[in-house]
């Protein structure tokens, strides 16, 4: 497989890998590093790529495992992931200051969710994968995914309702 062929396979989903990594690692730089690592690992296994039915799902699983390892080693070292990118969402898409504030608020709520729920929301509500695909990626069964998803969505709704009622931005 040539470099170009590999890029053609990888390009459609590299952003998804990056977004999942960022969802878990929070910091943009770390997510970028993780994405590169995943792509390099894929390249090293390029001989086997054609055997995989779904390279995308396989890559997402790899990303998940890689980020979990990263988080574990961070915890072991008692380090907190430092990030300063609460506000780096695409600004052009946010018309109003108010809208930006509330979107940042959602971002904070998302960061507080357990890792599994973060991933499920990421893969379903942001990337719009089918439950079957998510099940493969996360190595879970579909029911467990629905449950996690429902919990995450309800948590977000509750927190948003609270802030909305208090008028706290």
């Amino acid at each position, binding site marked *: 497989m040539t*470099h170009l062929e*590999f*890029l053609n396979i*990888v390009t459609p989903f*590299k*952003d998804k*890998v*990056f*977004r999942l990594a*960022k969802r878990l690692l929070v910091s943009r730089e770390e997510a*970028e590093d993780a*994405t*590169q690592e995943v*792509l*390099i690992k894929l*390249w*090293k296994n390029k001989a086997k790529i054609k055997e995989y039915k779904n390279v995308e799902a396989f890559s997402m699983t790899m990303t998940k495992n890689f980020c979990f390892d990263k988080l574990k080693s961070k915890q072991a070292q008692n380090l907190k992931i430092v990030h300063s990118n609460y506000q780096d*969402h*695409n600004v052009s*898409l*946010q018309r109003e200051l108010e*809208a930006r504030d*509330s*979107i940042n*608020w*959602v*971002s904070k709520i*998302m960061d507080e969710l357990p890792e599994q729920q973060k991933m499920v929301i990421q893969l*379903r*509500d*942001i*990337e*719009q994968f*089918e439950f079957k695909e998510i099940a493969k990626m996360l190595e879970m069964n579909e029911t467990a*995914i*629905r*449950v*996690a*998803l*429902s919990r995450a*969505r*309800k948590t*977000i*709704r509750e927190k*948003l*309702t609270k*802030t*909305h009622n208090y008028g706290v931005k």
Partner: protein
Amino acid sequence: MLNNIENLLEKYNNGETSLKEEQQLKDYFSQDTVAPHLEMYKPMFNYFLVNHQETFTKPLPKTFGTKKVFNYKWLSVAAVAVLMVSVYFYKPFAPNELSITEAEKIEINNAKEALAIMSKHLNKGTAQVSYLNIINKAGTQVDYLKEVTNPMNRLFKKL
């Protein structure tokens, strides 16, 4: 319509909506105005849409970690080539005359001529000064006069 959205939200919160239904919700909440009692959902669906736009901006690695194995065979080929070239251009004790240019030769000749003229003039000078030797000779001849004075002294003593 609103009723439909409320039903969908209920299903959504239970994790039972299909992707198509979720898209309906996203479309509804991306409108400028939504029902006031559902407004708290707006930032959430907006967040999902905005986050979907985020891209991996770092350039992809060019080689993907394919290690470039350094080829020692080519290193030896290069070394032999350098050695041969250096032997070809190496000339032990190149004679100095070869390195003198035409202009330098002319300059040397000029200098030689100038020195010759100078020595010629110096010789002329010494030749002229050599007349002084004759004066010296005359001086010694004048010494004979002393002998003339001797008998005179004797004469004066006697007186």
